């Protein structure tokens, strides 16, 4: 089984987010980058497939050389090989087309990507890849078992869950539940050493035109100062919620 895990290189969840002086872009200064948490659940699930069912794992990122430490980390966690498509990930459509091209050429059985990335939160890439390649698609996936050419999956829906079946090849938009938080792997020294000698293949991108263009970035308006209410006067909170905030 050949598994392709798509990895987005994103600011660490604790990062304070700032934009450049002209508000045209994200300011990367002083920001630590990590594997997108939604992708990391898929990566760990893929490592289990490798350990229990002998899968071959390739990790893929669309980005410039600055993302290579993130790919090396994925290799240290257990991926066998990495591919970097050397391009600026200008929008989701552009990235999805690059991933689809790599996936098609490599004839992967399973394509795992996070349901969304925590930087641009588009939530578009896995569904687009599936549609471009005409493969079945399961989004918001919280459980997956694979035997032979069939996958049994659980996906989150509004107010519940659905159990679905699909044949491989398949595209999955993953999240927590594919594995649990406690199951996530931290690279050990042996993994880090091995990762240095694993293949990291840098490829030229396909000629694709993006479908969107980004304008100004802004930060949320600051909240006005909090109104503190005495713990012995809870009725006052009810009054404020009704008369001032008008939410009850």
């Amino acid at each position: 089984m050949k598994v392709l895990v798509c990895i987005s290189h994103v600011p660490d969840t604790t990062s304070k987010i700032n934009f450049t002086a002209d508000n045209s872009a994200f300011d990367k200064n002083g920001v630590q980058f990590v594997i997108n948490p939604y992708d990391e659940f898929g990566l760990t699930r893929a490592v289990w497939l490798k350990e229990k069912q002998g899968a071959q794992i390739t990790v893929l990122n669309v980005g410039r050389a600055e993302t290579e430490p993130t790919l090396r980390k994925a290799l240290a966690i257990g991926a066998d090989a990495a591919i970097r498509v050397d391009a600026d990930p200008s929008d989701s459509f552009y990235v999805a087309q690059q991933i689809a091209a790599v996936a098609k050429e490599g004839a992967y059985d399973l394509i795992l990507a996070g349901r969304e990335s925590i930087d641009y939160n588009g939530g578009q890439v896995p569904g687009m890849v599936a549609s471009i390649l005409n493969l079945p698609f399961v989004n918001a996936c919280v459980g997956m078992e694979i035997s032979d050419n069939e996958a049994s999956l659980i996906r989150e829906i509004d107010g519940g869950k659905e159990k679905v079946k699909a044949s491989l090849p398949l595209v999955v938009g993953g999240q927590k539940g594919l594995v649990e938080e406690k199951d996530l792997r931290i690279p050990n020294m042996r993994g880090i050493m091995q990762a240095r000698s694993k293949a990291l293949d840098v490829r030229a991108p396909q000629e694709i035109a993006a479908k969107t263009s980004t304008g100004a970035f802004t930060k949320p308006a600051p909240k006005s100062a909090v109104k503190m209410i005495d713990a012995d006067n809870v009725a006052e909170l009810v009054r404020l919620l009704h008369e001032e905030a008008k939410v009850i």
Partner: protein
Amino acid sequence: MSVLVYLENWEGQFKKNTWEAALYASKTATMQGTEAIGVVIGDINESAEDAGKYGLSKVLHVNDAALASFDANRYAQAFAHLAQENNASTIIISGTFNGKALAPALSIKHNAALLSNVVDLPTNVSPLTVKRGVFSGKGFNDLSSTEANNIILFVPNSIPLEEGSGAVSVESASFASADEKTVVVESVDRVKGKIPLPEAERVVSGGRGLKGPENWTMVEELAEVLEAGTACSKPVSDMDWRPHSEHVGQTGIAIKPNLYIAIGISGAIQHLAGVSASKTIVAINSDAEAPFFKAADYGIVGDAFQVVPKLTEELKKFKAAN
């Protein structure tokens, strides 16, 4: 030219969320000088004529066995067909779980730009420009389309619901099912009596300060009197005190209810990212230095085990009197 909107139903029922999408579509259509058409899929237990109250000009009802359960590719195929038939250049979809799966597939089939995580009505129609949330609630970005066909996937609770009058005609419509790679739904497990978080107008949320899963009864009681959904912080879901589906924050669900009450949650930056779009935030915490008080509108420093039952009582009194 027209605007097409997905009028989603859940087990045959429409929700507030459905009508928010209808209103979003009719307002967008007005901006573009055109009409908005609703699309209903599958068996429904109530009439779709109500869509007229939100400004739609008609509703198309597709009831095809091939669409009995949700599949992103097959639904996308149906929408692409209807969009073409109705000369729709803009399609509006609410960011529900199925909406989020449908929109990307449809964008490929309809050769459209997808503008997702949109938090308000379009700010411009030519080129179509929207305000979208980025960095998990820590920022916003103006995004413009470079295409003639567009899909807007908006975040539920983005626009206030206004109800007009009138009813629309509901016409049945069909689509030619082509060979699609689909998934088969084997079983559905819905949690009964719970308000799904993305659409909840009020949310009561608990953190580690509640000390253990056995103490959630008071959270649920407060939620019940408020008709609110229940949520939790990441550590609480990681420790399995509460299901993952209740985890709100940067790596869980991002919500924007009118009222968010955080009980025993310190207010880590990752948690605030997912809830800061709430209109009114109340923080209840025993630690006066908890960062949540900086992000809240109202705060109470106190023991949750004392404050929360009192708040529930006061709200019951308020409800009885109003």
